[in-house]
């Protein structure tokens, strides 16, 4: 019995194309028409012993291949991050809290408005509670969080980060608690000591805490992250400052000129960071420019950089508080979106086998 069934494609050997292992492409003809055609072929073969005409192209064809150009069937070489939604949120909260502690401490030392100092303490203290909660909740075994504190490993950014978080949380919580005590019972010497010690600790630990998450993801095997290892900490630090300034302004400190200058500076830096990413060409950076992850990154960048810059300048020129508050809202949203975008881009990047295998130009 001689049959003449050939795939409608180019031949027996599948062509080299973007492997579709993750998302088989929907193609025409549909599954149903393929099945109909298969039934026809079977009938024809049964009756005449021979089939004329085209066969069917199987769903998902052309199939991925293992080759020096396509890797191992396009199956990702790296594993995607297993982190859940808590982690980008933690990056945001930690960044804002760390920067708020620094701003608040410096404001306190330079004798600025007490309300600003107090509000910054609240933000830092809230962050010192929310951050560990988010971290613990992301763990596969939350009950074992304290295992993080059985060693200190300088070569592990996460170990350094957890110890920084411990120092920061202690300091920020102490400063805020001292604030509560002072407000309620008036100043006293032991409370002042606690306040000063807490404030110093929150400044000292707040500096690395505001940006170490950039080191955390920069020093990984994920190409989109490690390609930016040098820039990510600065970027995340300035993003944290934007968020801290925005939150402080929204809490009623929108007349502080120092905050306005810090907010403008941070937003200008975010513009610069965005320009840098957009103008640099590297296969590892593709997830930051294309697809959903690229859209998220750009949206986060616009909300963190150009938009607040424009709003702040317009606010300065017109003296409008509402423009400044709009800039604050934009900065806070931009900071959160930026962290989400970076984590998401890491997922996309880990799925791209081409960068770690040194193949082609990336997705």
């Amino acid at each position, binding site marked *: 019995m001689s049959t003449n069934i050939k795939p409608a494609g180019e031949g027996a050997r599948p062509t080299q194309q973007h492997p579709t292992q993750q998302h088989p492409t929907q193609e025409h003809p549909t599954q149903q028409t393929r099945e109909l055609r298969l039934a026809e072929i079977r009938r024809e073969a049964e009756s005449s012993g021979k089939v004329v005409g085209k066969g069917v192209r199987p769903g998902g064809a052309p*199939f991925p291949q*293992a*080759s*020096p150009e*396509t*890797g191992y*069937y396009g*199956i990702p*070489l790296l*594993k*995607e991050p*297993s982190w859940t939604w808590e982690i980008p949120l933690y990056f945001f909260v930690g960044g804002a809290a760390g*920067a708020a502690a*620094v*701003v608040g401490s*410096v*404001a306190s030392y*330079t*004798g600025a*408005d007490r309300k600003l100092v107090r509000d910054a303490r609240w933000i830092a203290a809230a962050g010192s509670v929310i951050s560990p909660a988010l971290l613990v909740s*992301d*763990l*596969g*075994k939350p009950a*074992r969080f304290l*295992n*993080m504190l059985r*060693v200190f*490993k300088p*070569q*592990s*950014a*996460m*170990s350094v980060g*957890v110890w920084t978080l411990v120092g920061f949380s202690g300091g920020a919580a102490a400063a805020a608690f001292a604030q509560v005590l002072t407000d309620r019972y008036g100043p006293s010497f032991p409370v002042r000591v606690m306040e000063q010690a807490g404030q110093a600790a929150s400044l000292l630990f707040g500096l*690395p805490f*505001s*940006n170490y998450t*950039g*080191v955390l993801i*920069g*020093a*990984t*095997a*994920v190409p989109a*992250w*490690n390609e930016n290892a*040098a820039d990510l*900490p*600065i970027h*995340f630090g*300035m993003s944290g400052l934007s968020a801290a300034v925005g939150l402080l302004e929204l809490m009623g400190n929108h007349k502080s000129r*120092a*905050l306005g200058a*810090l907010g403008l500076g941070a937003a200008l830096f975010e513009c610069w960071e965005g320009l840098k990413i957009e103008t640099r060409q590297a296969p590892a950076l593709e997830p930051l420019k294309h697809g959903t992850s690229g859209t998220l990154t750009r949206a986060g960048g616009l909300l963190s950089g150009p938009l607040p810059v424009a709003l702040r300048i317009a606010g300065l020129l017109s003296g409008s508080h509402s423009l400044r508050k709009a800039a604050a809202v934009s900065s806070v949203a931009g900071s959160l979106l930026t962290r989400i975008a970076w984590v998401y881009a890491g997922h996309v990047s*880990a799925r791209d*086998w081409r960068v*770690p*295998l*040194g193949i082609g130009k990336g997705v």
Partner: protein
Amino acid sequence: MAITAFLTDSTLCIGCKACEVACKEWNAVGEDGLDWSGFSYDNTGAVGAETWRHVKFVEQTAEPGFGGNSPEMNSWSFSSDVCKHCENAGCLEACPTGSIVRTEFGGVFVQPDICNGCGYCVVSCPFGVIERNEQDGRAFKCTFCYDRQKVGLKPACAKACPTESIKFGEIEELRRDAESRLAQLKDRGMEDVEFYDASDSSVGGTHAMFIVRGDPRQYNLPPNPVVPTAYLKKAWRGSAIGALMLLGGAVAAFLADGDRR
């Protein structure tokens, strides 16, 4: 204690997956999905939390003369993949709990009673080996059969391999074996054999070495794996710059602001 290693010779592998089965049985590793990949006879795909040994099926173009293939038939290479047990192991360096340790045999071992499932090792492995088991919460990978090695036994996969494609032994000895095996294969006309142990990368060599046919990239073996600690210096420098910018900016802004009390 002897420093040990695997030498996995894909020219001897027949794709029987006895290593996968032996590994799962000895280590009580869970089932990892019974799905068809739909494009090759490899339905497992990659090593992961529930797959510590994984046989890769690399289809290659017709090659008359080797193994009596008909000229129209594609030939197959099989290669049993496993945790590379790097000399500079990204997972080990990244682990914040100290759960991941170097054993006396040179392997990289995750202590399951300490791992808290933070997932930092997952993004720190340049070979995409270690993975968090989402049901259990902790990270898992090949243990190098630490329990078996402790009592002088071969790892289960090497023990089960019917063709000695997976060799286990003292690392220097295996390196010499690999050298002579490569010479032997080339002598027989198999010119495209490659030895892979990543010793020329920042990973600094692996305790799972491979002999593969053709470009190692088609086995998902990266040509230049980078241990992520290599990025630490510039990342922490960035962190220091970021901290200085934050502190300097805040000091400048508040000092310049005359509107103080």
